[in-house]
């Protein structure tokens, strides 16, 4: 399952605080949701942290976000590792990402690479279309004849090809958009749009969403039995 973390700016604006404090408040929610997902037995969790379009935000806000993410990653690295969570960062291709942050991302991936408890994919500097274009490029480079390309062989060229299709996407703050998020993987996903803003989103909201999804699930069919770390068939 996946979360689009929306509403930090509005959360801050409602309190007459600078936008940056909304991002800061989001940290608590992130940790809360990770814990709740792990306890509820979710094996694959993706969080949409920063899109390729977010670079258009004012440079002071972007700089602040970079510093904040670095602090958060470092602060919670040991905890995530101790919880048996495998962390991965999807995207992270732009040269504007500070090298120190990229190093921390790589370190966290190295540190937790052997964990099998839950896989946490953080989409940072991510764009769904860009991933598809990259997969197409890699496919062409590998010289596969056009007739041999099907959905499964195409998906094998996406970044982190072992990521299963997303079953449920939660987008907070009531906005109902996809915003270029993991386009390939959300093809059959159920979407939920709780009105609560991301900094106010808590474990209880998360469990409510999961419950709603299970209700819907009863109508739409079974859960795909993917195992952590296993390649797609």
């Amino acid at each position, binding site marked *: 399952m996946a979360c689009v973390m929306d509403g930090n700016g509005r959360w801050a604006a409602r309190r007459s605080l600078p936008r940056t404090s909304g991002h800061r408040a989001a940290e608590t929610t992130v940790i809360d949701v990770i814990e709740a997902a792990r306890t509820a037995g979710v094996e694959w969790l993706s969080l949409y942290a920063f899109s390729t379009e977010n670079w258009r935000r004012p440079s*002071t806000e972007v*700089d602040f976000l970079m*510093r904040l993410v*670095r*602090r958060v*990653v*470092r602060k919670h*690295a*040991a905890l995530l*590792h101790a919880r048996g969570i495998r962390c991965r960062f999807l995207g992270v*291709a732009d*040269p504007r990402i500070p*090298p120190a942050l990229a*190093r*921390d991302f*790589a*370190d*966290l991936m*190295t*540190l937790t*690479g*052997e964990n099998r408890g839950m896989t946490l994919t953080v989409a940072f500097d991510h764009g769904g279309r860009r991933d598809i274009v990259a997969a197409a490029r890699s496919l062409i480079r590998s010289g596969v004849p056009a007739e041999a390309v099907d959905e499964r062989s195409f998906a094998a060229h996406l970044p982190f090809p072992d990521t299963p299709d997303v079953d449920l996407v939660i987008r907070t703050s009531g906005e109902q958009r996809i915003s270029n998020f993991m386009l390939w993987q959300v093809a059959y996903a159920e979407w939920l749009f709780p009105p609560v803003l991301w900094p106010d989103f808590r474990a209880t909201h998360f469990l409510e969403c999961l419950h709603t999804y299970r209700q819907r699930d009863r109508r739409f069919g079974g859960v795909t039995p993917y195992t952590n770390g296993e390649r797609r068939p």
Partner: protein
Amino acid sequence: MTETARNEPGSTGDTSGAGGDRLFGPGSRFEAFFNDPRWALAVVRATVLEAAHPQVGAALVDNSVFVAHPWRRLRNTVVSLQRMFGADDEVRRREAARLNRLHARLRGTDTRERPYDAMDPAVRAWVVATLFESSVTMCRLSGQPLEQTDMERLYAEFRAYLAALDGDARQLPATVREFWPYYDRVVEEELENTEAMRVILYRLFDHLPAPPLLQGLPTLWAAGRALAGPLLGVVTVASLPEPFRRRAGLPELPGAQALMQGAYLGVGLARFLPSGWLRTEVLTELLALSPDGDDPRARTIGALRDRMKRAGALVRLLAPLPPEPDPDAGDTARRSAEELFAAVLDQTGDGYLDWPDLAAMAREIAGRLDLDEPEETRLYDAFAGWWRELQAALDTDGDGRVSGPEYAAAVPSLAGPALIRVAEVLFDVTDADGDQRIDAAEYRALFRRGFRRDRAGSDDTYARGAFVRDFLAFMAGRERSSPYDPLLADA
């Protein structure tokens, strides 16, 4: 066994020995020592004895990068010894030729105007002698003296090493029995309290820079060094020959002898560790490993390295962040002129930019690319041209070298035609197949890592223009984080 080598005094140029009993490769005494942790203490001791020789000392002080870049130097030494003592004769021949070309460039005069020359056979014999004697002493000090036959065998191996380097081993006495008077005579008559020796004993140990892997942890490193640095100094001094300690005026600390023997004994106990835990080349590789490089061997060296990598990642992640930079301070990606001078240009760490600094850069690059003639000379010539340009432009007080302030005052004139020439030649020698593009394998040979994601063009090669531009950006301090950092700036 060893008699075969002893029976042909003065002509150990035949590296396989007379009876087919090989002096190099698996099964040699050297091989056994190479992974012995005590050998680290022995090599430090040997280096101090080397440096106490006036000619070696002068060459080290003038040319060596060991003060500013000790880990890189250590790695290069280990690789070189492995090649020289390995089983492959062709590898040994190439390495000997490379060392000879390298040493032929190291000559000059010391502060008292006495000439030195790294090709002087007597000097080279002394370097080999210190290694042999320190290995023997290491065994004695840790309470397990070598058997006479083992000692003779080891001596034969070191003589063969000298022979592979010099063509013959005549400068070293033919037998161990004759070796000791020779050794005692040099210690008594030739060794001095040289500057190089003082630098090693008192400056290097106390100011040892962190290895690249631990660069994110300055406080941890400083705390460990504050304890280990002086200790290593005391242990080394106490293990030096008594007559030399007396003549050089080295301090006698109470308990130092017991401490020294305890250290040798204690380190010797590490041999009870499971085999494979302590392998010299793995350790030095690890220490010299740049944290963000992607050495292909990293994948194959196995579980230990993986665990170390994860531990390193954890340690880096847990290390406290430096204080937030002032957002008004401007572009932090630039290196200041002083910083560039200290980290990159002043390779020998003496506070001045001089020809040996640039020669050290050429040496490092030539070593990495494993260059042969005439490419090696082309590279040195390009660096020499750059040195003339720098000297002409920057040496305002005319003392023949460039100081930090002189450099900082004249940074803009740095990117002259000779520096561009260096970049061009560097491109040519890196482009091994001469197709005017640097592909991933050529890139890896120079930088020991794959293409950076922002460097790789559509066809994953690196063109001349971009290469020259990036090199100039690094040398002008415009780009702080670059693949040149592990090559030239890291310790």
